[in-house]
């Protein structure tokens, strides 16, 4: 088990370093950001000086080397815009992003798992059909559109919820729902299909043959078996929620990492983009790693080895 952990950790490190490399080169290829930062009347010398400071005038491999050496120490340089260290700026947004991602994840699980289980159990019933229709629809609605509609109804028309910003729990509601909509649909479908799969298994028949009541069969037996694949999916999605909430964060003015990255992209504030990518890749890798451990914990076949 321990060397499995070590092996996976090494993998995490490799993936994150590679991710940084890729983004570094992508960004360097995209040209330099001087235009956006220096005043329009800045003379040549200042532009040159600025580029010099950013290291754009040096050979690419040296830039890369320096970048990587600094990056592994958590130094991504300063934000071009605010002249503050990039990493703390990114880390600063992390709590907001986590808050949104985790709350919508919990919300979707809270809805999706019972819905999926019930749907699988009452397969082909009216309830099942409605829930399937709902989930198919849920996956087809673009989240930004949903966000706009929610704002329109709850904030602009009914005035019962704030349209954006962060601060209190009330602010969380709309973005949380928007972000959760897709995951609810996805998790419900997945839970349903996994449950159907599990319910067909021989060991369920065995349990049934020993007189286990249906409720217990579904709630205890089948659910625990379904949890393994569900955990994997949830882990993958949490990663996506954390980094992929860009749109929701922009629509709802949520001060998270997605919006920061989006703005930094627009501003060509590359140190922030790099630091953000680093953090997201790291989180994603770590989540997957934790999911693997969790997976091993739930699945005795791995645990005991």
């Amino acid at each position: 088990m321990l060397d499995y952990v070590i092996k996976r950790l090494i993998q995490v490190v490799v993936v994150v370093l590679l991710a940084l490399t890729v983004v570094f080169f992508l960004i360097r290829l995209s040209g330099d950001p001087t235009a956006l930062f220096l005043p329009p009347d800045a003379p040549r010398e200042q532009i040159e000086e600025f580029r010099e400071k950013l290291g754009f005038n040096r050979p690419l491999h040296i830039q890369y080397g320096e970048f990587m050496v600094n990056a592994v120490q958590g130094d991504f340089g300063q934000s071009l815009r605010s002249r503050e260290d990039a990493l703390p700026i990114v880390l600063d947004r992390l709590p907001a992003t986590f808050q949104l991602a985790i709350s919508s994840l919990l919300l979707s699980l809270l809805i999706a798992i019972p819905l999926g289980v019930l749907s699988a159990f009452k397969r082909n019933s009216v309830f099942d059909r409605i829930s399937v229709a709902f989930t198919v629809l849920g996956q087809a609605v673009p989240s930004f559109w949903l966000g706009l509609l929610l704002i329109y109804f709850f904030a602009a028309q009914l005035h019962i919820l704030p349209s954006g910003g962060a601060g209190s729990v009330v602010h969380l509601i709309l973005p949380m729902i928007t972000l959760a909509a897709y995951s609810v649909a996805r998790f419900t479908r997945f839970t349903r299909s996994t449950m159907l799969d599990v319910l067909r298994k021989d060991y369920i028949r065995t349990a049934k043959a020993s007189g286990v009541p249906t409720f217990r069969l579904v709630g205890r037996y089948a659910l625990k078996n379904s949890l393994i694949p569900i955990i994997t999916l949830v882990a993958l999605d949490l990663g996506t929620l954390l980094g992929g909430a860009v749109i929701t964060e922009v629509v709802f003015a949520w001060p998270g990492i997605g919006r920061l990255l989006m703005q930094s992209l627009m501003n060509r504030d590359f140190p922030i983009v790099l630091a953000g990518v680093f953090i997201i890749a790291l989180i994603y890798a770590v989540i997957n790693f934790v999911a693997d451990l969790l997976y091993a914990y739930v699945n005795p076949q791995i645990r005991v080895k």
Partner: protein
Amino acid sequence: MKKNAFFLLVLSLLLILSACTEGAAGTGDSKDKGNSATTEKDSIVIAFEADAGTLIANSDVNYVTDTQIRNIYDALIERDGKTGEFIPVLAEEWENVDELTWKLKLKEGVKFHNGADFDANSVKYSIDYILDDANQSFYKSRWVDVQEVTVLSPYEVQIKTAKPFPSLIQRITEDLLIMEPGYVEEVGTDEAAKKPVGTGAYKFVEWSRDNYLKLEAFEDYWNGTPKIKHLEFRYIPEFSSRLSAFLSGEVDLFKNIPVDSIGKIESDGNSKVAEVASARINYLALNTFHDGPMKDEKVRQALNYAVDVDELLEAVLNGHGTKMTGPLAVINTAYVETEGYDFDPEKAKSMLKEAGYDPESLELTLDTPNGRYPMDSQVAQAIAAQLQRIGVKVNVQVNEWGAHLEKIRNREMKDMFILGWGPAFDPQSTIENLFTEVAPYSSFYDKDLEAKIYETNALFNEDERFKGYEELQHSLVEKAAWVPLWQQADLYAV
């Protein structure tokens, strides 16, 4: 770029606002939070599309940053938004001792938020801050000609320049904000960038990145304690979210309303839209750096005839903007009236033919940013439609702002592009930065004109300068350096 007296503006707008809320009191509608309808509003929330880059002064040239921190810091001199005249703020008087020397007399008895006194040292410190490489100020290039700042007495400063610098007052007005040297030295720039101290009307309270900036009235403000006790900037990048926050009463004021939403805001009952002329001008640049028809003066003139600015203003901007005819806006100190080009599609056609282009087979590219200026991409599409009427096919290319700017900087633009410029108060910066070879922002360049520009800029005699700019304006119009559009109108919802 709207830099001046934002605070004054806020105050004046609030007058309208408090009138509104009083009017609404009768209906019992009290959705405006933090405001009991009967008393005058003492707190205000202003929605902004973006966060300030930093809260330290004299660093970030971005107008979003500048507008916000001008509530915390004061300038030495400001400019009247309507007349463009200089108004003393922390500086009481200024004079030009000789071509290379300036002297400023400062206001006494002004205090910083931390209790420190404002004096000549603060001014020296603030200018030196810009000049110090270590601070990486984006303003530095504009100030490189400043050689030395000397404190003559506690309230007198002398500035020496390396070469004649006629627009120094302009620089002081637009760029310089006064910082507290003791505080910055004590906590360091990093900390000062997060917790600013100035002499401004509002003290810093709390800054949550990408979320809000909270300020409160400075009791000891030299110009009297502001009426509004709490000022909050909230950052909402999406216009629709901004608007909905406004309509739901979370936000009291915000800027840059699309013209087509005015009706909706005004119909809300509690709200009004206020229009304030901006110091930014919008124009259609005709790229002479690019090998193409735009190198031909006749073509440029033809385009000036073919674009109906009045129609654009009316149909696309619903009349919100002030038409321009030449290179400078009315607010510019050197503005003179120039003979413009009237809308005349027939003439445009014949001129194109004269230049050897068949309008029917001419195909041009028009680049535009999206969302940078009011209705920018729509304006571009409307211009395309207008040119289509004389048979010219225009391909509109909409760029994300960063990409647009980069294309201009790298001189990768094709035939035409839309851009704005501001502040357009000063003739030197406007003309120099637009119509010389080193500046790509209008991408128009004429060798003779450039020589004339440099010559005029170096003149120290006010009258001669003015005359020089007058001639330049006429020649630029004659050569059809660009298609002038309008001076932007800033629309505020209150």
